[in-house]
């Protein structure tokens, strides 16, 4: 498994996502409350880009008339037919065993920036450590 650099943590604020192309696959990396989750950017139903979906919570109910909204910000509705996916696992809510999108492992590390890549230093070499998101594939 190789680590593929995706972005600086600050580029993907909570609630947002970034789409990248890694080894021929379109991957969407979501920031869910500060943690990063990477899913194949393709709905298993008819192939829509999950990155264009809307982030919601999960309405739950034990009986008619009583309901609560749990897991705010952790569920994605596909932009086409509205299938709900758990961002943390890639599994659909209604049929988790058969309808799911592939999930990839992520990690966050501090990475030393090469001089001149991110910052323009005039005279002295500068080394900056910044939190960076990686996907392992």
């Amino acid at each position: 498994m190789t680590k593929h650099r995706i972005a600086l943590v600050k580029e993907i604020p909570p609630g947002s996502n970034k789409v990248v192309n890694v080894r021929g696959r379109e991957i969407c990396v979501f920031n869910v409350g500060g943690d990063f989750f990477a899913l194949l950017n393709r709905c298993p139903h008819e192939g829509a880009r999950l990155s264009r979906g809307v982030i919601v919570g999960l309405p739950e109910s034990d009986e008619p008339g009583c309901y609560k909204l749990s897991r705010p910000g952790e569920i994605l509705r596909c932009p086409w037919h509205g299938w709900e996916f758990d961002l943390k696992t890639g599994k659909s809510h209604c049929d988790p065993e058969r309808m799911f999108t592939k999930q990839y492992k992520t990690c966050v590390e501090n990475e030393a920036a090469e001089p001149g890549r991110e910052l323009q230093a005039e005279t002295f070499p500068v080394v900056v450590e910044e939190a960076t998101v990686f996907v392992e594939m």
Partner: protein
Amino acid sequence: MTVIESPQTGVAKKADTGIIDCDIHPLPKNAKSLHPYLPKRWQEHAEHFGGHLRQPFIHTTQYPRSAPLICRRDAWPPSGGPPGSDLDFMREQHLDPFNIINGILIPLFSNVASERNLDYANALATAHNDWQVSEWLDKEPRLRGTLVVSQDDPAAAVKEIERCARDKRFVQIMLAPRSSEPLGRQRYWPIFEAAEAHDLPLGIHSYGVGGNASTAGGWPSFYMDEHYATTMGGPATMSSMVLEGVLERFPKLRVVLVEIGFAWVPSFMWRMDRLWERMRGEIPHLVHPPSHYVKRNFWYTTQPMEEPSRPNDLRRTFDWVGWDKLLFSTDYPHWDQDDPAYAFNVKLTPAERRQICRENAEGFYRF
């Protein structure tokens, strides 16, 4: 390892054959887009009074919601305006990637068929047809238009048909199944006569706000019910048209039911034929069993496609309905649209795909 931001629009998914999309919904860019096609008297009417429809909701509709403007969330053009309003974006997101050789526009906005003010309805119908020609058909040779008429004013509707039928890019006449009365009733027959005379099929799209409850059991509580209810309107429309004798009187009239489903058709035919055997004395004008007219005169678009849990059930449904009766459609840009690459959850042979996705429509619309 380079990190690349993927482009917004899709990877080209070229179908193995050019396809014909029998249901695309264009929208005007804004509330004034139709004004150039409306006489000043009606521009002012639109601004001061607006439409007058027989529907119970304020600021919403019986029709599919689930997403803003009923559209898939990635179909909002980057240039602005609502989904379906930008021809360049429609080409980029839909027509080009799927190799759509012909797309049939069906403009649903304004609910012209249900507008209570019939003079306004007629002005709107003319405006919709002229708008289609100027903004879409003249600019994109792959597109075809649908003739919008005010169906509750059949004399005016016939005039509009006569006016527009000369332009062969209009390939069908749209009627709303959610009508004031069941569509087979004799008040609508002048429209059928004109359609048959011009060899223009009727495109009956799930549309209209006739004022009746959306289901036979009354007004449902949930949007899910409303979505399904549009399909249940299919048997009511078909039954009325068949039993009133529309297809006995106008035998060459072709009818396509658009976005009304098709899996219900076989059981409906079985039921109607049995009833006809027992009750034919009530409708002696029907010379043949109902299924004869259904098989001869009706076609169906495929969206929304059925998705049975046993994929082979879909194939058997096609056997019962008739493989030659199915016209592929996407319903772009609505959220419940079908992607041509994934619409069928059963494997089709290339010949079967070509038949449903192209040849049937070429024959039906005389392309």
